[in-house]
């Protein structure tokens, strides 16, 4: 306990130092206030290095070879799904066949409700006149998501087997997860060829970190009893892995799979900038001609696809193998495949005979884009709404965001570094503090300090708001099974509904101001806060809450003194995810209009300034990883104290 309070003291001293440095700002030597602007030097070195990597080392040939393999697979999928003129050069499968097959798969995996969801989703896509775009998107996803799952699983197993691999992989993953999208864009285009291949590589890179982490976590948690049982029954190492460890870690692997699918679909719009065909590209084109209604329809499609794929894949993994009595005829044993075959033949033939079942033409589609447009515009123009949002805009911008922003910009560089170091020390002791000090000093040395501060301001504000709004929601939802389920649905939707769509209404209501930026980040950031808080609260052992009830605690006392403290390590993981998400979204918010690192990154796209782009990207990475380390250290400490 003494060492703990000494920690606290050092941290507090550092915070005091920060305050003193800020107060004495006018007296400080200028170097302590702001370091010189060194970024042109770093950019130059990076450019040279990139050039060497790409041309002299010839890395580009290796990546291009990998890309062509991936490209072949995607082309096959593209031929089958929408008839792209590539091998095997078949005609596209009719929409009715795909929808019917999805329904059959849904039925056998999870009963009629899943059948309805899967069949209904694809029918919706066709009837809305979005079939071709959906299939263009799917042709990349059906290759990228399984690749992401497999690579993630293998790396996860590897990092569980070898602690050296884990220690190398951990920082690499942290960098991959926090490297801003605008930094991926150019290297993906150069090394993997603009088009579906670059898009799928970007998708895989973005979607696998949770898969790797969850696999490793799951495998580590496998109880020794299970392992013993496996060894006693004489399993080989391969059998141990496939029959004992992986099934025992199924829950975590499933969460990983869910995240791979959700993140793949979340990337559909962004990857359209580097060649992802289909829904995302259409959505961007619609937005640029101000068609709100039709972009909402596309957003609904993306959410439906995400939910369907998620539920189907989960059901597939959960489904137990069926066992039949000896002597069961083969057509009963293979009933599902037979039905699927029959459905395939029937609908493909139907599609060939009745064009409607092959392709729904634009005039037949049920799209009501322009009607939705009118409704949305009427709602946005409605005076009470305008009055409320006008007030919120004024209040938050003028009284909250702008003053805190200016305050943060006023703090001298070394004052802020002291504050961050102190914060890290309070959270987790010396190690995070050293990392915080080194990383934030590096941000200062990179030379984008003011912009970095604006980025930091937006992320931290949005995360705090997410906690203030999200935690009560989660606490309320965790009370009942039904509310929990609904809330999870809302989370899935918020995570996959393309954020681009609500950017437009948000701008119409709040203008191009910091409030809109915070709002856009907030919607995305609340998801992990809500999800992990629910998870944490529901994971509190029943004995504990019962003990609290027996000792006569009120609901409030039970929540504050028993449930929340026990759930805190899990909530901290959610908080950490929230911060990482907001570091991701704050860069995307450059599409609204910001003045931070994201805006400068956008500027580097004109003229392909790779070096400058990376100095900006790494400023984001360094800040994000500092928080990642500090919060994880804190969660770990709590977990130990609670004996979990």
């Amino acid at each position, binding site marked *: 306990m003494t060492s703990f309070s000494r920690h606290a003291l050092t941290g507090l001293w550092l915070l005091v130092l920060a305050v003193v440095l800020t107060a004495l700002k006018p007296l400080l030597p200028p170097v302590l206030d702001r370091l010189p602007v060194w970024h042109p030097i770093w950019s130059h070195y990076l450019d040279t290095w990139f050039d060497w990597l790409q041309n002299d080392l010839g890395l580009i040939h290796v990546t291009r070879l990998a890309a062509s393999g991936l490209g072949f697979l995607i082309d096959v999928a593209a031929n089958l799904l929408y008839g792209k003129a590539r091998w095997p050069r078949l005609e596209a499968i009719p929409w009715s066949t795909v929808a019917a097959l999805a329904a059959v798969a849904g039925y056998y995996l999870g009963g009629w409700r899943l059948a309805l969801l899967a069949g209904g989703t694809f029918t919706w896509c066709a009837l809305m006149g979005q079939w071709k775009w959906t299939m263009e998107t799917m042709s990349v996803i059906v290759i990228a998501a399984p690749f992401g799952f497999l690579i993630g699983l293998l790396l996860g197993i590897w990092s569980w087997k070898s602690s050296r691999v884990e220690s190398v992989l951990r920082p690499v993953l942290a960098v991959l997860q926090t490297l801003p999208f605008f930094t991926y864009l*150019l290297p993906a285009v150069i090394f993997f060829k603009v088009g579906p291949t670059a898009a799928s590589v970007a998708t895989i890179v973005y979607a696998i970190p949770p898969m790797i982490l969850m696999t490793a976590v799951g495998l580590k948690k496998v109880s020794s009893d299970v392992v013993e049982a496996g060894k006693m029954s004489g399993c080989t190492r391969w059998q141990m892995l496939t029959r004992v460890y992986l099934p025992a870690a199924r829950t975590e692997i499933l969460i990983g799979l869910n995240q791979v699918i959700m993140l793949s679909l979340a990337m559909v719009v962004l990857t359209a900038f580097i060649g992802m065909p289909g829904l995302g590209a259409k959505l961007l*084109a619609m937005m640029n001609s*101000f068609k709100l209604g039709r972009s909402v329809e596309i957003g609904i499609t993306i959410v439906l696809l995400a939910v369907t794929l998620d539920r189907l894949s989960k059901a597939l993994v959960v489904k137990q193998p069926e066992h039949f009595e000896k002597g069961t005829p083969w057509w009963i044993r293979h009933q599902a495949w037979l039905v699927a075959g029959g459905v395939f033949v029937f609908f493909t033939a139907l599609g060939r005979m009745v064009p409607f079942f092959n392709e729904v033409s634009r005039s037949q589609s049920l799209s009501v884009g322009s009607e939705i447009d009118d409704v949305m515009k009427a709602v946005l*123009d409605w005076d009470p709404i305008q009055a409320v949002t006008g007030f919120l805009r004024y209040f938050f911008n003028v009284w909250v965001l702008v003053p805190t922003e200016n305050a943060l910009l006023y703090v001298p560089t070394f004052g802020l570094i002291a504050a961050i170091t102190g914060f890290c020390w309070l959270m987790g002791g010396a190690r995070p503090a050293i990392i915080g000090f080194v990383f934030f000093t590096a941000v200062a040395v990179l030379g984008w300090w003011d912009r970095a501060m604006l980025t930091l301001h937006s992320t931290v504000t949005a995360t705090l708001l997410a906690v203030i709004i999200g935690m009560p929601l989660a606490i309320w939802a965790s009370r009942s099974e039904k509310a929990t389920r609904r809330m999870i649905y809302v989370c899935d939707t918020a995570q996959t509904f393309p954020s681009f769509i609500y950017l437009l209404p948000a701008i119409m209501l709040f203008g191009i101001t910091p409030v809109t930026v915070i709002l856009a980040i907030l919607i995305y950031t609340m998801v992990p806060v809500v999800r992990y808080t629910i998870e944490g609260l529901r994971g509190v052992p029943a004995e504990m809450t019962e003990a609290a009830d027996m000792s006569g605690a009120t609901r409030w006392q039970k929540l504050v003194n028993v449930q929340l403290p026990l759930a805190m390590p899990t909530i901290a993981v959610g908080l950490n995810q929230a911060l990482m998400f907001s570091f991701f979204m704050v860069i995307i918010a450059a599409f*609204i209009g910001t003045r931070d690192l994201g*805006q400068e990154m*956008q500027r580097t*796209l*004109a*003229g392909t300034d790779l070096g400058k782009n990376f100095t900006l990207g790494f400023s984001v990475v360094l800040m994000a990883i500092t928080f990642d380390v500090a919060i994880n250290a804190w969660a770990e400490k709590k977990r130990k104290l609670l004996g979990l």
Partner: protein
Amino acid sequence: MIRKFTTTLAATAAAVAICLSASAPSLADDSSDPIIIPIHNWSSQIVMSNAVGQIYQSMGNNVEYVTTDSQAVYESVRLGDVHLELEVWEGAFGKSFREALEKGGLHDAGDHDAVTREDWWYPMWTKEACPGLPDWKALNECAHLFKTAESGDKGRYLDGPVDWLKHGKERAEALGMNFVVVNAGSAAALWAEIGAAEKDKRPVVVFNWTPNFAEAVWPGEFVEFPEWEEGCDKDPTKGPIPDKLYDCGNPAKGYLKKAAWDGMKDKWPKAYCVLTKINFTNPQIAEMAKLVDTDEQEPEEAATNWLKANESVWKPWVEACSG
């Protein structure tokens, strides 16, 4: 040894090619590999790309489209991953284009007749509140009309995304204007801002360009700044204020170019020849955008319909290259 052999072979091939081209002006046949055409996220470019793609298909070529970012695309053309670009706007993409040109791998394939203009713009209802428009001095006197909650006493001008390199801020400073300059992050953000101002006819001044779809939805005018002089962005003495850069409006007649991958000429000589002949005008581009934005056609069918209605425009381009 092998290298020497290949050089000899190449030299012979070149000699044969020269002889052939001297004797008959016809071009070699195009490769059957697909010509990859990049499409971006605004309608006129999408329709134009589809129209050109369909022209190539009518010549027997294979065509594929790929969606890309409109700045990063020049790097892809340079590397030969996509093979041409049909809309190189002087203002927005000139820098990316020029830098890719310096690195090598792509070249200028000629201008369209269409001219582009990108500048400060206001929807017509703004003029009612500030009748002196379109003169920039009148705009400056009405600056208070453009105030927002965050802009203090000054008016707010909404500039284009930073990667379009528009220098609105520099201009406001050079001309001593009473305006705060805020950058929108995307074209969509600009439209949302105009759309929000529409109902109350709130005066706004934003960045806009022509040709695009907005002209049809919200009639408006460009602000008239001191006329562009060559070098206004590099030489302080140009323009009305002797010691400032950016004290002029943007060029009122910016170019709209086509760009081609260097290898296109050899791989698809006929298609390349057509590319150099392709030439659209402002009304044609506006028409293409309208088919999609107002008439709600899909870009593919809009392109087909446009080609059907305008055979006299594009047939000569193909004929000039098939002789």
